[in-house]
């Protein structure tokens, strides 16, 4: 086990909290490089498996047939995984069949967007399987699918609030932390175990997707909503950059309050992700412009390091003052920044 955990156990034994040091922490201590390798190979196996299922049962499929076959496959896979102890090969086969059934469920005839059904199914499945690594991977897949479903395809719901998906996921993630703390206090460790492994996968995916979708447009869409309501102009869009920064900072503070012990790590982590995401977005713009490197050279040269150093202020803890007292100044500065970018 890790050095920190070993030291903690020694402390606990010395202070009489527990009687003897356990030797192993079971499946929880499976190394993460092995989990990632397994996930990649399982995904690789899922693609031909999906092909096999289609060729055997669905060559001329229509309507709900893919959903039916996908559901049956999924139920079988969950059944195999639930019957423990499972042989390693069987466990991987079941995981690959789960992945291929999610692919099949993607091809559903629902009008709400193809991602919604497999997303919901992935959430449910992640609660049902006992293997922690599969739970984490399913949760990551579920967050991505649901985020895409709510972000891109459900225009009739999200026409007033575009891009709410990742913020919504973030809020759900925070709420789940409260739930986790409650279950831990109640001594229901099995439930806490399920929640924690789901939170690992979903948290990672949320950070990845927030970083991917951050930058100039992370909150521009929010302001476009108000502009659309206004019906005439997009003047609020000018505040997209400062709002983006502030939103990131506020999120980090909320995270620090809610997630107890992570108080000292999460704010800087989120700030770094935010700064890095902002810079990544600038790079994406640079790469995608008609004249590569030409139009956005100053953005990358000047803004990206500034964004990172600003994030570093958060690490120092000095931004708290800046945020409380100089938020309007920051907003004005960022607006000018945004305009400068247009002139370049």
């Amino acid at each position, binding site marked *: 086990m890790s050095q920190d955990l070993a030291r903690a156990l020694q402390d606990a034994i010395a202070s009489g909290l527990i009687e003897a040091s356990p030797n192993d922490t079971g499946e929880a201590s499976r190394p993460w490089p092995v989990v990632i390798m397994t996930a990649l190979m399982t995904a690789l196996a899922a693609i031909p498996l999906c092909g096999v299922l289609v060729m055997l049962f669905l060559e001329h499929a229509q309507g709900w047939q893919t959903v039916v076959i996908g559901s049956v496959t999924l139920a079988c896979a969950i059944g195999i995984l639930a019957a423990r102890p499972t042989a390693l090969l069987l466990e991987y086969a079941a995981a690959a069949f789960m992945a291929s059934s999610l692919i099949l469920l993607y091809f559903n005839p629902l009008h709400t967007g193809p991602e919604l059904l497999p997303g919901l199914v992935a959430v449910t499945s992640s609660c049902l399987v006992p293997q922690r690594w599969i739970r984490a991977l399913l949760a990551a897949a579920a967050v991505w699918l649901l985020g895409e479903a709510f972000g891109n395809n459900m225009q009739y719901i999200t026409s007033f609030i575009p891009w709410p998906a990742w913020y919504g996921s973030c809020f759900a993630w925070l709420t789940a932390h409260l739930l986790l703390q409650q279950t831990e206090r109640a*001594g229901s460790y099995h439930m806490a175990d399920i929640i924690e492994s789901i939170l690992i996968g979903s948290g990672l995916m949320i950070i990845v997707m927030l970083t991917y979708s951050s930058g100039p447009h992370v909150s521009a869409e929010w302001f476009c909503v108000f502009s659309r309501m206004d019906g005439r102009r997009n003047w609020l869009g000018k505040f997209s950059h400062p709002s983006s920064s502030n939103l990131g900072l506020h999120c980090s503070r909320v995270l620090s309050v809610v997630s107890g012990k992570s108080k000292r790590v999460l704010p800087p982590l989120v700030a770094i992700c935010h700064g890095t995401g902002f810079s990544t977005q600038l790079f994406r713009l640079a790469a995608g412009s008609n004249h590569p490197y030409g139009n956005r050279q100053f953005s990358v040269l000047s803004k990206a390091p500034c964004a990172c150093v600003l994030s570093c202020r958060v690490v120092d803890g000095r931004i708290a003052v800046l945020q409380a007292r100089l938020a309007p100044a920051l907003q004005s500065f960022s607006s000018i920044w945004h305009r400068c970018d247009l002139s370049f």
Partner: protein
Amino acid sequence: MEKIMLSMRLAVLELARRHHFPANTYASLLHSASREGIGIATKVSLQQAVYLVALLFAGLGVIFFVAANWITENPFPMFFGLELALITAAVWAARSIRRRTPLTLLGFLVIGALLAFFGQHYQSGADLWQMFAVWAALGVPLALAARSDAIWCAWLIVAMTGVTVWWRHLGLWQHDNHLTGTNLVTFALMFSMSYALFKPSQRYTGAGIWSFNLAILCSTAFVTTAGIAGLFHDASDIYIAALLAVAYATGLGISHQLFDIRALSICALGMDLLIVGGFTKMGFEFHSLLVVFCISALAALVVLGITVSLILELYRNRLVGDKS
């Protein structure tokens, strides 16, 4: 050897579940277990990381600036600016211990911008790989002086790009059975360099686990991609060379002194992908898509099962060995 867990909290929860800890015991254990790691991450690493990212972007910004402005009548201002930036970064890095790594990184990137501008302006006729080779060679003293994992990571990316471009330049990717040996030597050299530079000589180079794993990741990605591309372009000699090289790297990774679970997992993944690719190619001989799908899926699952079992077994043995 430290055990790399998926989550500390999960491990504590597992213990609590097995031994029926009361809630306060669990809370104390969790608090105690997560205390040390958080402190280290907050105080030292994160500040450094942010400044590093900031100056990384500044350096890349310089490169973009040069790329956008290299058609110029008078190159003097550009040369002057780049050399000034390089000297400033180097002198500042020598004087400031706290910001040494980020500033060295900036200097390293400015060297690349300077070489690129020189090559573009004077049209020396050199091949692209030569620029990367010179850049990597000039970066070695900087990396050795900085003794930083981050600088070695940047150096590695440049060096590996150079090797890849050189490989393409020599035409080794083309189908020619006489080149099997050359390919094998090239691939094996990449892995050997990764291990030699970063694992046993860490004391002298200052390289850390990130650069070592990046070296293995880059080598494996390159060799595996080349092998699979060769396989599906009727250049089976490249495939065989790649398979042998990855097997050699996996063998090195298993040895006691060079053992690293991350590197071993990366090499094993590369080998698995090559084996599955081979089986898939074999499946095409049957002229049935269903057979291809069945063979590739089965191969992926079987190979994965065997690999993971072996790695976990090896890992547990190492842990037991270290404890005893």
